[in-house]
């Protein structure tokens, strides 16, 4: 551990460089890609939250779409029906996902392993069905569109509309940076060390004196809030709220992006979300059954590259990558 300080500096520098690169890219790429990248960054934030639970704490969930959707509806519904400001709406989205994650965690963490997985699946499915059932309010899977006026933020005299591509891009970048740096800080902290220990050998971790239930609950709640932030961000930036985002499909996407990028790596979610976005985009040009790519990629990953892209990179050449 002689170069611990050196390693730490290197890691922070790398992650800041990624953010800087993302900032610079908007001046280099044509406008078409700005919207795509903004979307990718929001989805990457979703995957960062998911990865916190799967990659670092070792809990597989197939229900995370409900946290994303909680943030989305939590921000979108007030914006649509009432006259709340952008920041308040975002805050409400965070609150909604926090409440959902906490109550869910208190119940679901009594179960473990496959039982936990199925509980996440069932709760998420119930949540999705509820958004359909209450479709007088939520407008079901048709969804609703948020006006530009609702998505305009005035800070210190400066008027920013999220319909503006530049504002959209940089807001998405801000969201992703906060989520990603937050994740980095957490996984390198004493808490992160315990999470990894729980993933590796939970009984041993308990016998070292850690209340593993409390740590898992913390991971679940933080994971839920980050996913909720992504969902609220999506509503604000892309103006659309609909049931599809609560469906199992988005839970599977979170898993897919995380696995592809490298489960248990901080930057993996960005790589996975970005790569998958363009894969699906390209496939969509050829066929309407473009989700086939999803199936093929999942199989390839699980059979031959379970560590994903950055995970394999880390195993071979860069052991210090967090």
């Amino acid at each position, binding site marked *: 551990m002689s170069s611990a300080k050196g390693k730490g500096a290197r890691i922070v520098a790398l992650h800041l460089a990624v953010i800087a690169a993302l900032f610079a890219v908007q001046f280099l790429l044509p406008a078409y890609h700005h919207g795509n990248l903004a979307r990718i960054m929001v989805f990457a934030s979703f995957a960062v939250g998911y990865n916190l639970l799967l990659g670092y704490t070792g809990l*597989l969930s*197939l229900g995370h779409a409900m946290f994303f959707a909680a943030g989305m509806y939590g921000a979108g519904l007030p914006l649509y029906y009432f006259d709340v400001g952008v920041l308040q709406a975002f805050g409400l989205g965070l609150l909604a996902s926090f409440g959902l994650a906490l109550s869910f965690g208190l*119940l*679901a963490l*009594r*179960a*473990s*392993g*496959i*039982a936990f*997985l*199925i*509980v996440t*699946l*069932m*709760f998420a*499915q*119930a949540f999705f*069905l*509820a958004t*359909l*059932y209450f479709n007088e309010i939520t407008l079901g899977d048709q969804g609703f569109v948020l006006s530009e006026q609702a998505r305009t933020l005035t800070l210190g005299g400066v008027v920013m509309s999220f319909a503006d591509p530049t504002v959209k891009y940089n807001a998405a970048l801000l969201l992703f940076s906060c989520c990603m740096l937050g994740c980095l800080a957490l996984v390198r902290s004493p808490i992160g060390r315990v999470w990894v220990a729980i993933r590796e050998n939970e*009984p041993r971790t308990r016998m070292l004196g850690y209340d593993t239930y409390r740590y898992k609950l913390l991971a679940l709640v933080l994971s839920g809030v980050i996913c909720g932030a992504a969902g609220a961000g999506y509503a604000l930036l892309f103006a659309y709220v609909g049931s599809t985002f609560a469906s199992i499909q988005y839970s*599977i996407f979170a*898993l897919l992006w995380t*696995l592809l990028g490298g489960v248990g790596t901080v930057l993996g979610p960005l790589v996975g979300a970005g790569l998958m976005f363009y894969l699906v985009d390209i496939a969509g040009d050829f*066929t*309407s*059954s*473009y*989700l*086939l790519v*999803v*199936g*093929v*990629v*999942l*199989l390839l*990953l*699980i*059979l031959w590259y*379970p560590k994903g892209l950055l995970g394999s990179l880390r195993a071979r050449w860069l052991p210090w990558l967090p």
Partner: protein
Amino acid sequence: MDFGPHLFLALLEGTVSAFVLAVTALGLSLVFGVMRVVNVAHGEFYMLGAVLAWWLTTLLAGSPMIGFGVALIVAPLIVGAVAFAADWLILRRIDYQPEATIVATIGMLYIIQQLVLTFYGPDARPVEPPFYFRVSFPWFGYSGYKLIVVGASALLLLGVWLAMARTKFGLYMRATQQNQEMAQAFGVPVRRVYAMVFALGAMLAAAAGVLVVPIQQAHYLMGLDPLLLSFIVVIVGGLGSLRGTVVAAFIIGLSDGVISVFFSPTLAKIIATLFVAMVLVYRPSGLFGQPEEEQ
């Protein structure tokens, strides 16, 4: 219609779906019981059975009865072969690890579903029932074919039970389910049993799909609802308990049918999914399964 006959109709509908659900869920339960893995693609085998039935009956357009009869035999066999191959090529390689299998079967789900979308298209297509007669109740006429479905499903369930209890393969399955290592030590070809059980599970789902397709239509997304319901049934009935699965299928199939007729199908599903989540939280092994040892 008055309430009484309406309830009777709801019960009839519930019985039909309960029997079909029992066959479908039994396939999932066998796979979980013997192999200890969750097959998320199970609904797609059901869908594949229905779509193949459409294709075969369209091919043999001459006589609906012969076409359907052929479909009832051939479609499950084809689906069984697909499942066998999937086990051999994929599941074996990941060594049946629980989480990896779930991800792999999700992949399989997408592949099967999207391939069907490519070749069959997004439309829902009907299939003619092999025979058409109505049973006359004092308040309404009811499709005789649906009652045949009940009979056929019952036969399938009986067949599986007999196979488990009386045949050598059934013995292998039960032994592997009880204690995989012991079975292997006694010379049971566990790997082969796994492949055959996976195929058998798929075939049951496919058979259910074939039986159901004259009532519903064949559509590439039709596997998702049966998957969810089968999950619920298998968990509520107790992971690994076949008897529990069948009992749960009836309870859930009937109540789902009745609630769907009187209230909304969406509400029925919400209640069912929350119920099963609670069952798992408080009794991780389901209602009938063996309770886990204290940790």
